[in-house]
């Protein structure tokens, strides 16, 4: 696919190119208005692209009507036909395709059993709860699948309560991965947590463009730019410079014994980069080859550290910790699984507020009160370096998400 869709002068999608593998659970993630739904509509044939091809198994299907594409499309808010009961809703595609009524009847009953709606054949959509509607909509979409097993989900969990969302998300994943159905799923959402939980791969899109495609790991630990980093979780960012005339070249990462296996894996083959962000100490951060090559000595850079990648100690420990700040706990908030601290530190003689989240334990609770002096630091593997995108771009991204 390499698709452009314009609405008047507004480009909803520009040169989007994605390849989705067979039996993959593929998440399209992006903020509201990024073009996610437009993309789905193009795939389903509800709108035709201005440029580009849509290929199913190598065959061009641009000219096929939506009904001929044999895909299951579950709409945001479900779009259950309000004037038909749930059986008529579920069996709609069978009637349209004139399938055998008796076998249809059987499958519909199976679906009703699955959706816990046995015996409520005549219920109208408005009589159902959110979870029931979601299941009926899913059944209706699945009924339309024949040879192609492509299921498209447009914000399938958006309209549900938090608790229900969790259980239905699990159900959805179980179903998608079940060997009986063999589904390929394209699922659109603006919730990065949801994306991380279910995706095989994620495509992050923004303003009609693909920003990054990759596994949840890749997206989280190797964000391509500030937008991706910021979209996936709460971050702190620092502006700085790559230190001049450093001995950085060729210095391969020696894996510290403390970092866990998983970090070893992602940081294999990375290089150490010394940077100056405006405090006395030079910080050092590991980065991959590709980025290493693009950043020259003296370049302006942006250092991003996720809130949950900071560690915290009492008092002043600047001497024995790398990449450390000393500061004062301004505010502490208990969030259940973790504490969210706001720590004031000094950079370039200006105060900066760092957001730091630490898993909640009794120890943390006792040691770190509001007003305590602390040292906060982050491991060299977990700092993320970008070329400085310019002030305007930073402000734009910060206001976007």
């Amino acid at each position: 696919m390499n698709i452009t869709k314009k609405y008047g002068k507004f480009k909803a999608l520009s040169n989007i190119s994605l390849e989705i593998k067979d039996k993959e659970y593929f998440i399209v993630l992006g903020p509201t208005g990024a073009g996610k739904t437009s993309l789905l509509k193009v795939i389903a044939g509800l709108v035709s692209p201005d440029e580009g091809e849509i290929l199913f198994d190598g065959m061009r299907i641009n000219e096929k009507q939506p009904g001929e594409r044999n895909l299951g499309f579950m709409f945001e808010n479900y779009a259950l036909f309000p004037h038909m009961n749930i059986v008529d809703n579920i069996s709609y595609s069978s009637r349209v395709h004139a399938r055998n009524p008796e076998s249809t009847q059987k499958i519909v009953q199976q679906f009703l059993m699955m959706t816990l709606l046995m015996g409520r054949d005549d219920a109208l959509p408005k009589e159902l709860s959110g979870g029931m509607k979601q299941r009926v909509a899913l059944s209706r979409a699945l009924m339309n699948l024949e040879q192609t097993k492509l299921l498209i989900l447009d914000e399938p969990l958006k309209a549900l309560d938090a608790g229900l969302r969790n259980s239905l998300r699990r159900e959805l994943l179980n179903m998608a991965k079940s060997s009986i159905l063999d589904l390929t799923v394209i699922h659109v959402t603006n919730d990065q947590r949801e994306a991380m939980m279910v995706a095989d791969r994620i495509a992050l899109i923004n303003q009609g463009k693909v920003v990054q495609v990759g596994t949840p790991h890749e997206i989280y630990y190797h964000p391509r730019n500030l937008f991706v980093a910021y979209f996936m979780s709460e971050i702190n960012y620092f502006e700085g410079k790559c230190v001049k005339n450093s001995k950085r070249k060729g210095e391969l990462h020696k894996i510290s014994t403390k970092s866990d296996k998983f970090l070893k894996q992602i940081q294999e083959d990375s290089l150490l980069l010394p940077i100056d962000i405006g405090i006395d100490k030079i910080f050092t951060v590991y980065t991959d080859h590709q980025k290493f090559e693009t950043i020259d000595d003296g370049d302006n850079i942006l250092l991003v550290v996720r809130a949950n990648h900071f560690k915290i100690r009492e008092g002043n420990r600047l001497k024995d910790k790398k990449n450390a700040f000393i500061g004062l706990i301004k505010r502490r908030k208990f969030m259940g699984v973790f504490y969210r601290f706001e720590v004031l530190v000094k950079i370039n003689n200006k105060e900066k507020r760092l957001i730091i989240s630490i898993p909640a334990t009794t120890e943390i609770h006792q040691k770190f009160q509001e007003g305590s002096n602390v040292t906060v630091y982050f491991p060299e593997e977990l700092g993320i370096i970008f070329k400085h995108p310019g002030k305007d771009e930073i402000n734009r991204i910060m206001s976007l998400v």
Partner: protein
Amino acid sequence: MMQKEESAAEKPKTKKTELSLTLKTERYFSKPKYRKILDGITISFFVLVIIGPIINIFSTILLNIPSISHDVFNDELIGALQWYNILESLSVSFTIASVAVIFDIIIALPISIILTRYNFRGKKFLDAIVDLPMAVPTSALGFSVLLFWRLFGINPGYTLIIFGHIVFTFPYIVRNMKIVLEKSSVLYEDAARTLGAPGITVFRTITLPMMKEGIIAGAILAFTRSLGETGATIILSGLVETAPILIVGFRRQLEIPSASFLAGILITVSILLLFSIKIFTRKVKFPVKRIWPETEKYLSKKPFRYFRDGFSLIVLLIVILIPSFFIITQITEGNLAEELFLAKDYKWAYLYTSFIDSISVGVLAVFINLIFGIPLAMIITKRNWGKFITILDTILDVPIAIPSAALGFAIFLFWGPAGLNFFQPGFYMILFVHISFTFPYMVRPIISVLEQSNEGVEEAARTLGASNITVFRKITLPNIKQGIIAGSIMVFTRSLGETGATIVVMGRVRTIPVLIVDWVEANVFASAIFASLLVILFSAFLIFLLRSIRKKGDVIVA
């Protein structure tokens, strides 16, 4: 609740800051006592203007049974001829209304879908031009239709009345269909398409059932408009007599008993019809379960679609749009200057005064309907009076449902020399009649905006210490502005375009539509064309205003 309000009212007094005089006055008049007085005045206005005359016509019939039975059934000379005339006119009226409405629906279905679901150049223009005939006085439209079909040798009579009625009822039908189509999400249609349904199946099983409300609302409105229309019908009818024309005829010949009898029948039948349609259509369901996959797939193919869209657009053009505005091309007919300005009967002076009278009646009707319409809309949406509100809400539509000539006659009987003797036929009686039949057009849009508006905002203002009237002035009124403007323009255009009700009560005064009818009947076509063009331009301007104001928040009347 009341205690709360009072305590809220007392608190600010203890504060040092002085309330302005306006706020003080508003606080004073926010007392429940004054609210009750206002409610009382509003309800009495409603009863006097709408229910009174209608009840009165039935009591008049009962009191005058002997003279009615003499005039209608047992006249020495003509026997029961009038009764047969009445029956004949009723059957003519109903047939014409049915044919026009069915034709309208068939053409309006594809047109409304084209106007809401397609994207093309000139869509806005087509949309506006389809709406336009609604604002043009029917007598001008009827005259234009007459001039157009005259080219093809169709003379006044049955067929021409139907053509005329199709033209002026069409906008009501398209409009209501468009409103439901705009409200109902494209999502349902998209869902059906992804499930494999071809175009026709989507339309039949998804779109059409969702349009039901709009089709019914439009059909009721169009049917009642057709049933009650007088101005265009007089011009197009030739020797055929519809029921409203017969009433006008009786009234002109001062056959009051026969006129009241026919008005009574028309009012009864219209009201019964309104309710039975409302009850009956709720039960109608479209057959959505059966699907004929092969046939429907075949019929959904492009050539059929193009044919269908093309055909309906051509019919729209030939039967509705061109006849509506054909009159523009006729400006050169006759010697206008001589006929209108130089002739000794001073036609231009008549034109001038009737234009002023028409506009004055319209403006005053808007003004008075605003004063009583807003409180009534508030009563219907906000008071918890149970059944009474339901009844009020239902009766409100009655003036729309009954033929305006019949309503006009009822008001003539009630307020005129034969009844309370408040008015003589003339300007004030015209005004009174116009207030009466346009009242629902004012109240309905306001009700629908009130129902949509967020109640939380008003409650928030109250918790902040504002008195009821202050809340109304600062919060409610700005919120319902859309409805007020829409209602006002509807009232004004309906008043400007009315013929039947005016003829019955006008005495020596002439409004523009009546003047057009008179001039057409007197065969002074050039002046009639000029007068028609004048009102068409004026109405086009009004429609333009209406459309630029109400981009969203469309309202179903009836």
